[in-house]
């Protein structure tokens, strides 16, 4: 299904619509600009109606089919409210450049104004339903025309949400275009990329690499790539901290950018690492019993790798603690690596003096560090982790929190989607 200027079209009309896309975009650019207020009002009214149950007939079966908890829906809706979006605008864009001119001695002061980038192509990922729509809303807030390439695993939520926005505020219609083009249809994707001033890509290395190829040198590329997160613990980490961390791992099954893959312990002493591994293993086992089991394929895949690691342990020096559907691998190296997911993590030594060097190789992949330490060392370690490249340093159980107004992987999207124009 295609959404084009507020109207739904069949996928078979793709080539016809692509043919007129550029002229339609130019017409919208020439027309009246979009104000954030229009976007905020439409989003707020939609979020209220969804919360009020107006879309339950569509939403309930969908939530059940993909076992999405109500809390997740509420959190998602929270991002679309007037309050959230207004705060987001304020935090991300800061003071209006029009409020202060740039002095130019001997000339009239230079006026400054924020403009949208123009046309944004969003290449969305399927990891969170509705996220593609949120990406478009961000583009709209900055005033852009938005072309959205739906992810292959999309279940229709984004199309529905964006169509509804247009129904609530018809002026938005000219700024929203949604295409269900497969990633393999390079001709159509190139046609979309050609119209765009900026390409926003969500996804793993593969998706980012593909987008780099798609973007002409004069097209701005904004990448929201996949990330890795971990916990950093000192000897002061409490059982309470470790329980909260275990709960976070079981809830996210370690599948998110912000999910903890393993624990680095601030020590060189392998004995201490072993002790923490054993301690955390007991806690993780207990916590896992409170959650529905992870996907069988995920568990099977982990089991094969763990078994292989066991056979290799004599040479690798790793020790695998396994049972109760979870595992903890005690490893002597200090490399940040992906875990076997689904409740299988690692524990490794990483003394704070070596932290910067150890994480250097993972540049661009670093996201959240859950910090488990004594209150008096928190300040120092937070600063150290920030210098190492982490962009969120949180409490143990808070690694995957989502708050309106939070930066995205260390960046403010609305800034990336707009430009400052200076005018004499």
């Amino acid at each position, binding site marked *: 299904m295609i959404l084009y200027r507020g109207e739904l079209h069949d996928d078979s009309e793709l080539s016809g619509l692509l043919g007129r896309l550029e002229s339609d975009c130019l017409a919208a650019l020439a027309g009246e600009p979009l104000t954030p207020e229009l976007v905020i009002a439409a989003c707020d009214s939609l979020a209220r109606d969804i919360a009020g149950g107006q879309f339950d007939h569509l939403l309930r079966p969908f939530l059940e089919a993909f076992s999405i908890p109500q809390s997740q829906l509420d959190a998602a809706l929270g991002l679309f409210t007037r309050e959230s979006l207004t705060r987001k605008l304020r935090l991300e864009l800061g003071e209006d450049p029009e409020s202060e001119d740039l002095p130019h001695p001997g000339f009239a002061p230079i006026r400054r104004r924020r403009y949208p980038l123009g046309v944004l192509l969003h290449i969305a*990922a*399927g*990891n*969170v339903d509705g996220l593609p729509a949120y990406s478009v809303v961000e583009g709209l807030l900055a005033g852009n025309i938005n072309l959205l390439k739906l992810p292959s*695993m999309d279940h229709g939520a984004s199309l529905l949400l964006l169509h509804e926005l247009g129904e609530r505020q018809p002026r938005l219609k000219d700024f929203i275009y949604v295409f269900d083009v497969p990633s393999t249809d390079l001709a159509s994707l190139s046609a979309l990329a050609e119209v765009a001033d900026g390409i926003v890509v969500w996804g*793993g*290395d*593969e998706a980012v690499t593909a987008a780099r190829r798609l973007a002409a040198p004069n097209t701005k590329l904004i990448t929201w*790539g*996949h*990330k*890795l*997160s971990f916990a950093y613990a000192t000897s002061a980490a409490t059982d309470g901290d470790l329980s909260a961390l275990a709960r976070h791992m079981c809830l996210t099954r*370690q*599948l*998110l*950018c912000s*999910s903890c*893959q393993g624990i680095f312990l601030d020590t060189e002493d392998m004995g201490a690492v072993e002790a923490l591994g054993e301690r955390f293993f007991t806690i993780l086992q207990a916590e896992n019993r409170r959650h529905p089991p992870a*996907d*069988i*394929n*995920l*568990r*099977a*895949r982990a*089991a*094969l*790798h763990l*078994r*292989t690691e066991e*056979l*290799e342990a*004599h040479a690798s020096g790793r020790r695998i603690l396994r*049972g*109760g*559907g979870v595992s903890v691998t005690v490893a002597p190296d200090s490399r940040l*690596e*992906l875990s076997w*997911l689904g409740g299988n993590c690692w524990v490794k030594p990483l003394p704070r003096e070596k932290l910067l060097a150890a994480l250097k190789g993972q540049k661009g*992949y670093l996201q959240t560090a859950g910090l488990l330490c004594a209150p008096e060392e928190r300040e120092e370690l937070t600063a150290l982790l920030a210098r190492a490249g982490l962009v969120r340093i949180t409490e143990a159980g808070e690694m995957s929190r989502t708050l309106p107004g939070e930066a995205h992987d260390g960046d403010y999207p609305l800034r990336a989607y707009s430009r400052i124009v200076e005018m004499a």
Partner: protein
Amino acid sequence: MTNSNKLFRWRDPYDTGGTQALFAAAMEENARFQAENCPDYGRILREQGGSAPGDPAALPPIPTLYFKRHALFSLPERRLLIKATSSGTSGAMSRMAFDAGSLLRGLCMVWRMTRYHHLLSPVPCHYLILGYEPHRGNDTAFSKTGYGFTFFAPALSRTYALVWRDGDYQLDLEGLRRRLLRCARGPFPIRTIGFPAYTWLLLSQMEKEGIRLQMPRGSKITMGGGWKQFEGQKVEKAELYRLAESVLGIAEADCVEFFGAVEHPILYTTCPYHHFHVPVYSRVVIRDVDTLEPVPNGTPGLVNLMTPMVRSVPILSVMTDDIGILHDADTCGCGIHSPWLEILGRVGARGLVTCAAGAAEFLKGGEGR
């Protein structure tokens, strides 16, 4: 005669009940040989506290992943006659090699199995191989087994889907179609050999073009290699049998599927109800995905395959990348008295969504880190 040789000459290839003790003894014999001749296997066996005589399931199951990372041989290189690599769906390949004794046992097995399933025939036939034309430098097991299968009945011709031209493999569907059209008018039966997905591709293409043929009596469609690489277009088996009947006039009972792996070179062959019964040469243990302990029949889990066939490599007990179920014999109804193995699919959770760096690739089957 060694216990292994006795097992591979057993008259009834599905008499798993009558060969329990012999199988266990042959496994014990093989484990001892591997431990003495392959230091790495010896270590693995020691680490888990030695073998348990009479209980092959207690031998350490080694994941195929381990063979992809480590080359293990238990015989000197000069004794290794055939080298093969797995087709390596996800990049890494296992390196395997087979000695004369192992191959001889394999040959006995192939003879017993193909005779049992009426695949051996003195009537010459035309082979259509939906795979690679053999070529020096292509060591993947499929090109070898594919070629091997063309000896079950005398070959009048061999036509390949992937032909070696100008230093590269090229898909030649047109050549296959021409051959089929010609064979339909001739007296000799045909046999197709290939991945089910390729077979389906060819047949559905021909059906779209409105081709309806009646192949000579005795023609068969034989398939092996599973459905890997084609997860996206997984075809219902029933649809494939329908196509065989409608496009080539080959009855469902003449569609035979094989299953095997370089790491477990046992020829599993489907019964008339398209089930893979466990032959005497092999035993299957389905293991719990968390504890790796054996689970009762009817429960899905990781597939652990055992055979004492091979001496040159310690593949006596391997754990495949598949999730499967072992069903009791009587749930089939074909009359074979051994349980049957159902492969549900490769592990790897394609349906799961993730944004952890490298996780998607890992779940797809890569090593991920």
